[in-house]
């Protein structure tokens, strides 16, 4: 069981791997006279990434929100996931659930999600990155969280390599998308239940995350299922288009650290949150069945 646990933690990191590689023209070209240091990036190779579930739930935890098991995908649904797309998307979803349990130190639930992740990983034949030697190291360091994280990260790098070597970027993108939808479902529900301004802000922040995610998925839209996923995400994006950035009073950062950004945030109304939650629930139900 211990080995299974570590294998699953490593798989959680799969949902965090960057996707990309296509040549992409500059979006929304701007007048070079208006923007200083503007450059021609038309020849650049572009990769997209979104925040890890761990990052998102760190913000959630900072808001004081409590663990809520009821918003997680049920582990007994795993038998429903038959197609490769369904397995990959729910591997992402379960990985997000695992991260949520990990951050809130829910050991039993953590183990249950780990078991599912291991099963889906095997079903998708994502292997070759986790040898017996790594498992031995994990066992030897099982009580040292920092060491464990270092080994898990290394395993994640191996997984990244494995998927790239096998040209399975579509699977990687599907895992990432499934993970984001699950994270959205969790934070939107918690925002709706608590009406916490901070959590609503975190849902609002997903406007910019969704932009990167859809750009990432665009590269794989030839895939019918990813194309369908993109359509659903654009519907969520349409609601986000109604949310404008609000200017905030500049805050002082920690000493000696440069402050980056325009001090804006995306504040949701209760109605906008409801609309997003409805769309996200529909999409999440399509994925988790």
């Amino acid at each position, binding site marked *: 069981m211990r080995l299974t646990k570590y294998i699953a933690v490593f798989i959680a*990191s799969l949902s*965090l*791997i*960057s996707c990309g590689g296509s040549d992409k023209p*500059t979006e929304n070209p*701007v007048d070079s006279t208006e923007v*200083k*240091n*503007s*450059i021609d*990036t038309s*020849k*650049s*190779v*572009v*990769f*997209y*990434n979104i*925040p*890890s579930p*761990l*990052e998102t739930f*760190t*913000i959630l935890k*900072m*808001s004081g929100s409590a663990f809520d098991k009821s918003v997680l995908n049920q582990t007994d649904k795993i038998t429903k996931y038959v197609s490769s797309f369904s397995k990959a998307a729910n591997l992402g979803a379960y990985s997000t659930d695992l991260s949520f349990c990990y951050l809130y130190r829910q050991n039993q639930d953590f183990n249950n999600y780990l078991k599912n992740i291991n099963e889906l990983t095997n079903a998708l034949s994502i292997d070759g990155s986790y040898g017996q030697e790594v498992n031995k190291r994990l066992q030897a360091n099982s009580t040292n969280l920092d060491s464990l994280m*270092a080994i*898990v*990260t*290394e395993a994640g*790098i191996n997984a*990244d*390599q494995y998927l*790239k*070597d096998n040209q399975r970027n579509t699977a990687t993108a599907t895992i990432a998308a499934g993970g984001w939808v699950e994270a959205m479902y969790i934070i939107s529900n918690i925002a709706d239940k608590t009406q916490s*301004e*901070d959590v609503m*802000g*975190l849902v*609002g*922040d997903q406007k*910019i995350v969704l*932009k*990167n995610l859809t750009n990432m998925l665009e590269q794989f839209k030839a895939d019918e299922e990813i194309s369908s996923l993109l359509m659903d995400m654009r519907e969520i994006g349409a609601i986000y288009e109604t949310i404008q950035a609000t200017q*905030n*009073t*500049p*805050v*002082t*950062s*920690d000493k000696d*650290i*440069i*402050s*980056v*950004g*325009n*001090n804006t*945030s*995306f504040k949701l109304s209760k109605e906008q949150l409801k609309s997003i939650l409805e769309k996200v629930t529909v999409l999440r139900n399509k994925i988790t069945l």
Partner: protein
Amino acid sequence: MKLSQQNIKLLVSVFLLFFTISFSANAQCKPAMKEGIKKLAPYMHNGVVNTVTVILDEPSEIHLSVYKGLNYKFQIGSEDALGKVSFRVLDEYKTEIYNSAGSNDPLSFVFFSNASQNLIVEIYPMEKGKQGCAFLVVGVKEPKNIAVRNL
């Protein structure tokens, strides 16, 4: 234009060679990346793996989202075959925020994000004619002023 059998074979060979180079380059990145993750301390690695293959003098772009209210550390690195790299951080309108050229620590950038935003990290090879794997790893830390999200 019709391609001869020989040309097709040549194209296929070049194509396969490209992938061979690309993948072996990524594999070579792992030791450097492990070091890069160590250099994130005391920032917590967010677990994200960002590897890119820099091809023949062209910059690689990584588009990533950062959250409002966290301190971030970007750490860049590359495999030996690629040689030294430089990087720039741009906002989504391509306005330069940071340029590693001339920096005391040319492979890292530490900042506080006062807004949730999409940033672009451009990685350039510093030596002409080289290609290989480069990476970006990201560390996060709660600022001492944790009330910054309550804006």
